[in-house]
């Protein structure tokens, strides 16, 4: 194994073209995989553009090298209720949040991710450098394994909106891999549901936007508390996990969904 310490994005891109190259962000995911087979390790910690957090012009941009802890901290300064403050601020543990990077997490896409659901709900775009230099939508990136090959996650960005937010991580203990997560963003206007986004992760599809739930509630009276049979609106894509069977997790998700809707639409503390 040989280590390289580039200082610029261009230098990283040069490395990406070479065989047997592995990018090292925080390293936590690498240590769970086949580390010894990596021939060229490219450390990203010295590449300043990857560590930038920029909030301007109604858009937030987070560099791929920003850690979970830093992202939660910086976003929390301006919006303590930001969905990423809730999801990333409680992910894994304090020392791990200081190492896990956004770029590494987006690339690895673990089923227990606390990042993918909120990004999908926020309508995030990902800027890639390397073999596929482009800005792509989160959904497109998740669907295409080709985009991940030979790419560096330079940054991700999403529009700034003031949302009521709710996040649920289905875990057995605080420090546990989530069986599924539910992300909800909500806005209302004149007592009506103006905008609702619901995203589920941890199923066989990894990340799914629950359009059926959104469509049922969009535009209706926010005071209305009868949500109907929410479980029937959930997908059949739950999978068995150590936390419970697929059908059990689907039922739990329905309860979590209703709880989230009541919290958001009732205006209670989320």
């Amino acid at each position, binding site marked *: 194994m040989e280590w390289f310490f580039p200082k610029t994005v261009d230098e990283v891109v040069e490395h990406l073209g070479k065989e047997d190259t592995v990018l090292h962000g925080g*390293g936590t995911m690498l240590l769970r995989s086949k580390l*010894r087979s990596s021939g060229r390790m490219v450390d990203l910690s010295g590449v300043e553009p990857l560590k930038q957090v920029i909030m301007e012009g109604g858009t937030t941009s987070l560099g791929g090298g920003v850690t979970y802890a830093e992202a939660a901290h910086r976003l929390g300064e301006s919006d303590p209720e930001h969905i990423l403050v809730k999801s990333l601020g409680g992910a894994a543990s304090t020392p791990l949040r200081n190492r896990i990077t956004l770029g590494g997490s987006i690339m690895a896409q673990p089923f227990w991710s606390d990042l993918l659901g909120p990004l999908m709900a926020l309508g995030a775009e990902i800027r890639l450098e390397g073999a596929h230099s482009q800005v792509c939508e989160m959904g497109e990136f998740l669907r295409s394994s080709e985009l991940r090959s030979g790419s560096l996650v330079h940054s991700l960005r999403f529009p700034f909106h003031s949302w009521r937010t709710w996040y649920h991580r289905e875990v057995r203990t605080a420090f546990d891999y989530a069986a599924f997560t539910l992300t909800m963003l909500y806005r209302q206007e004149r007592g009506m549901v103006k905008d609702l986004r619901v995203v589920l992760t941890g199923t066989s599809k990894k990340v799914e936007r629950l359009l059926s739930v959104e469509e049922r509630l969009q535009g209706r009276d926010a005071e209305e508390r009868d949500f109907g049979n929410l479980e029937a609106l959930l997908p059949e894509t739950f999978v068995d996990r150590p936390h419970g069977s697929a059908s059990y997790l689907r039922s739990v998700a329905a309860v979590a969904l209703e709880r989230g809707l009541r919290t958001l639409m009732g205006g209670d503390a989320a």
Partner: protein
Amino acid sequence: MKGSFIVNGLPREWEFPEDMRLLDLLRREGYTEVKCGCREGMCGSCCVLLEEKLVNSCQVLAASAMNREIRTVMGLSEGEEPHPLETAFAEAGAVQCGFCTPGMILAAYCLLKENPDPSEEEIRRGLDGNYCRCTGYVKIIEAVQRGARKMREKEVQE
């Protein structure tokens, strides 16, 4: 490979395998206050400060920590004087086997730097990456509260 590190304020230069973890390097070089627990980033007994951020040293490749400042629990004290948090842990009886204590103290130190007067809930959250299998956490939380008071008093005196 060969690399430079700054450990507890002192420059160090070591040779080490390219895939060595920071935990193993530190222990090999005599920093045995960094404990080896789970090696999976779960227990927190190997915690150190890397550029003043709490990290699991078992989850850090040593090469990625080159030319950076590393602090172990031994680096908290000033000379012969123990750090107020170390004193608080002893006074509160928050140490039984002592294996988790270095990581606990470093986690508490990071928390109190950000938040000098945390609530019990905030302490629990700040220590969420550190396991203790002896004390049941009651005495540890008491020690952090006691340490916080000591640190605030010290700051006022200075």
